[in-house]
């Protein structure tokens, strides 16, 4: 695949899917397949796949809040408000159910509002454990998953067998691995895999059938791997936050020659950075999923007795990816992220990793402030780069 073909594949397959989930939903339904909405965070998508239904990620939408304002006051995040807006304006009409975790303070009332606003769409509720690594946490999560499985079976009108779940785990692990590979490859080819293309490839995984997404991505990854390495002269950053998929926002990165070389974003790497574990002897597949959830961490939404885990993870990302700094895309009214931020900033400052915080909301139209901030950030990184170069040359390194 040439560079042009790479871009073409991204455009035709991934960008198309990322930007038109409603069309994919229509396609699933036309083919006689039921679809289930997957709400944030860490919903066991594998079970939906194992039931033979199509999972569709629900991460809000850009636009204005109208009907959702009759449920949520103005001080709620886009994930809560825009997902409800989607339910109210009919975007979710074709779904046979939604899978709704409640791990965040905004999602608790969201679940209640959803079932009030759309009683016709079955809501499969899930309350994951925060103390998830101890045996009692794994046992509880397994029980929750068993209930979710039953409720999904009722929606699908079919049994979800253990074998189907094992198969789903394998399919999803393969997808995760391929997406991680893509993230690494994208980092070394930033002018081909621009922030927007990168986002489309990752976002489309929430809507496309996983086997197809993985298959096309594998070909794409092979092609990127075969390209000559780029000599990127712009900045390199790690992006952290809940969402960073707005085309307007990503174009600001692009315009300022900031490559996204790794991420700590909820609907990107946080959703595929770790696999479901290998089964212990004769382990029931639901327990594997529960242990998989237990293994998640370094996330504002998940309590971790190791209180510096996320900071370490972020520093590790910077180091491994060769990024020069971190950009926090702060979702407005997102308490979990806002409560992590001061500590993360302090941890990065302490080791001299430049960082910036930009505010984001799906109702945002004017990205002027983000533009000004990222311009300044990009210049600062370039200055540091030049200083480091001259320091290196003056010391003869």
């Amino acid at each position, binding site marked *: 695949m040439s560079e042009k073909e790479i871009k073409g594949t991204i455009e035709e397959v991934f960008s198309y899917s990322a930007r038109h989930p409603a069309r994919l939903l229509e396609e699933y339904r036309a083919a006689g397949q039921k679809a289930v909405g997957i709400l944030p965070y860490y919903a066991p998508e594998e079970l939906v796949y194992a039931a033979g239904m199509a999972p569709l990620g629900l991460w809000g939408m850009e636009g204005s809040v109208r009907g959702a304002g009759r449920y949520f006051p103005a001080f709620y995040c886009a994930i809560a408000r825009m997902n409800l807006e989607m339910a109210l304006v009919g975007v979710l009409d074709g779904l046979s159910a939604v899978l709704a975790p409640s791990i965040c*303070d*905004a999602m608790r*009332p969201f*679940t*209640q509002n959803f079932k009030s606003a759309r009683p016709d769409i079955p809501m499969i509720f899930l*309350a994951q454990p925060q103390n998830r690594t101890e045996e009692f946490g794994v046992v509880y999560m397994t029980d929750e998953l068993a*209930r979710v499985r039953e409720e999904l079976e009722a929606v699908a009108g079919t049994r979800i067998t253990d074998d189907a779940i094992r198969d789903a785990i394998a399919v999803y692990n393969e997808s995760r691995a391929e997406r991680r590979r893509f993230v690494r490859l994208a980092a070394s080819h930033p002018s081909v895999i621009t922030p927007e293309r990168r986002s489309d490839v990752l976002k489309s995984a929430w809507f496309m059938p996983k086997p197809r997404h993985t298959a096309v991505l594998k070909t794409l990854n092979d092609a990127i791997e075969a390209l000559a390495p780029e000599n990127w002269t712009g900045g390199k950053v790690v992006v952290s936050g809940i969402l960073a998929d707005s085309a307007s926002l990503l174009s600001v990165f692009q315009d300022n020659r900031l490559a996204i070389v790794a991420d700590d974003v909820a609907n990107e790497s946080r959703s595929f950075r770790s696999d479901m574990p290998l089964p212990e002897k004769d382990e029931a597949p639901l327990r594997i999923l529960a242990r998989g959830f237990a293994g998640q961490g370094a996330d504002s939404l998940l309590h971790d*007795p190791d209180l510096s885990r996320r900071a370490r993870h972020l520093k590790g990302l910077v180091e491994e990816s060769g990024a020069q700094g971190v950009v926090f895309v702060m979702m407005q009214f997102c*308490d979990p992220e806002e*409560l992590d931020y001061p500590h993360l900033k302090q941890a990065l400052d302490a080791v001299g990793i430049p960082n910036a915080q930009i505010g984001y909301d799906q109702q945002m139209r004017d990205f002027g402030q983000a533009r000004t901030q990222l311009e300044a950030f990009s210049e600062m990184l370039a200055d540091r780069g030049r200083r480091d170069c001259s320091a290196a040359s003056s010391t003869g390194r």
Partner: protein
Amino acid sequence: MGFSGDSDSNAKAQADAGAMVGANTSAIDGANDDVTTKPAKVVLREIVDAVYEQAWDAKKRGEPVGWSSSKFPAEIAEALGLAVVYPENQAAAVAAKHGGRRLCEYAEALGYSNDICAYARISLAVSDGAPAEERPVPPPDFLLCCNNICNCMTKWYENIARRHDIPLIMIDVPYNNTVDIPASRVAYVSAQFEAAIKKLETLFGRVWDPARFAEVCANANRTASAWLRACGYCAMKPSPLSGFDLFNHMADVVTARCKPETSRALEQLADEYEQAVKEGVSTWRRDETWRIMFEGIPCWPELQALLRPLKEHGANTVAVVYAPAFGFQYGDMDGMIRAYCRAPNSVCIEAGTEWRAALCRENSVDGILVHYNRSCKPWSGYMLEMERRWRKELGIPVVGFDGDQADPRNFAEEQYRTRVEGLVELMRANSVTRENGAPL
């Protein structure tokens, strides 16, 4: 038996502002030391003060002091004899004495967004060493966090644990989407109770004594029953109390529900209400033209502003959700766990609606005033839907206003006044309709 706790004069309202959160105010200076002659409100205030004094004493003796979330099972620390203070109560006390803005801004300067719950901001400021003379607390040696009321709590306590490098005992109570709590969730929470007890035993060399635990639980149950009895007087017409008094005494149920003196003081309070009914007096010294439910935590910095239009219109608060929320009783460990799974923000909308609807029915409420509390996302997030359900189920008007429990910058008195007036108009119209026998 005196009823000095009227909400009538501004000066009184201010004294009550301190009392409401159990803060030391000059109002108690010179109070008679003879317990039997003290009004219950004074005894209750002193009990909260004593909780903080005991924590300071423990600190001086070199014993550990914990900071606990308000709905962490207090029975555990009490049974282990560990001194504990309550940051939410502290934040309320600070806010009632107008320190909320100062400490919120302190936290914002540390990088915490002003979107974050103001209690959390105040407490994070305090944990960073910001002075809080309004209600000083000793620095923490351990943390008891239960997220049954919110996950903000989890993040808030993580921040403190990190800053102080101290143990964080975390009891996770997942949110409930059904009125019944699934058995597997009870088992999960139960295992965490055990783990928490073991951890505290190990950390501080304490030994778990089941007999002591039973005693503590008995106290908590007695407190809950006295609390419910006292709150129950709101159903009388006219009510012998202003419902704002209950916000006041909540401090005791939060900070000292396992102590026998709290049970006794609340029983005394209920007796006083009983007597007031006989005498035909009330701590609400105005007409009781309207009986309302005040939904949510009050705006502590603005108590006078909250009460002013209510007084002008003769609208007494006769229902607050804290009555059922803190009046939980249980017979065994399983029952206790289920009770802690039923915090205001951990129950589903059906249960939350019914708690309040039942109160409104029992207490003959004419209208509901909802505080859209900027601080509390899990609380305010389903109130708009609850409003609709109440209107339909109860046939009474519901009006909301924007505010904040502790950050005065999020409250506008003008808007509040207008909304109260709107509510009064709607209640008036509703009563005319009812009198005319028209359908609701």
